[in-house]
């Protein structure tokens, strides 16, 4: 996974790797939180352009970061979701609280 912070827009972007399951989530969760706490971004953007597989662990991951970002006065957005990921996202109902945006 790579991430970058856009200072002028106060945007923190996480470009997730190909497969998001419990195994992957356990590996990256702490790093995401560290970066959110460090930059206190206005927008945390999850870029799914590389993600071809996601199960419910990904939903838990997004909700968890949503809570943290919210607490620090920011919001979470998602972008570039492919079909299989979009299906999980819509089914979980989190599309109601997390905005999908155009990016790049």
């Amino acid at each position, binding site marked *: 996974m790579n991430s970058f912070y856009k200072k002028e827009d106060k945007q923190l972007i996480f470009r997730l790797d190909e*497969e998001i399951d419990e195994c992957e989530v356990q590996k990256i969760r702490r790093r995401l939180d560290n970066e959110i706490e460090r930059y206190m971004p206005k927008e945390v953007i999850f870029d799914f352009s590389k993600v071809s597989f996601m199960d*419910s*662990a990904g939903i*838990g991951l997004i*909700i968890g970061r949503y809570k943290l970002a919210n607490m620090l006065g920011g919001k979470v957005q998602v972008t570039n979701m492919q079909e*299989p990921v979009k299906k999980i996202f819509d089914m979980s109902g989190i599309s109601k609280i997390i905005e999908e945006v155009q990016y790049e």
Partner: protein
Amino acid sequence: MNNIYDNEMKIEFLSKSNNEAFARIAVAAFIAQLDPTLEEIADIKTAVSEAVTNSIIHGYEERIGIIKLICKIRNKEVFIEISDSGKGIENIEMAKQPLFTTKANLERSGMGFTIMESFMDDVEVESVLGLGTKVTMKRKIKSNSQNEEFAIATIRREE
């Protein structure tokens, strides 16, 4: 050997998190002989991933145990059985409710059974406290266009 199935496989593996990917990829490779669509493959992989992850984090929790995965094919139908000898489920009906989780502290979303049920045609859960859990799932693979073309060509020839 008498067997009503066209093909069948069985694997056993340890309840380690990196086996989630192994299990779903093994099933995807096995069912490729049915010529499923990309969407069907994605749905089945996701359901397998949910059931295996449940055995690892809920069934065995911190311990290491064995997870058994059986996949069978008959006509165009896939049968999958995933079982553990872990702690078992106290109330299956409650466990199946969307958003229900006993591990909110681990950021589980409680959507595992909901995803299995909506991605598969049928999901059965059997569980005995202290003995373990078995999830059995079915999914019919629709004939894809290639098969349809072949069928139409055959019918034409017969006419």
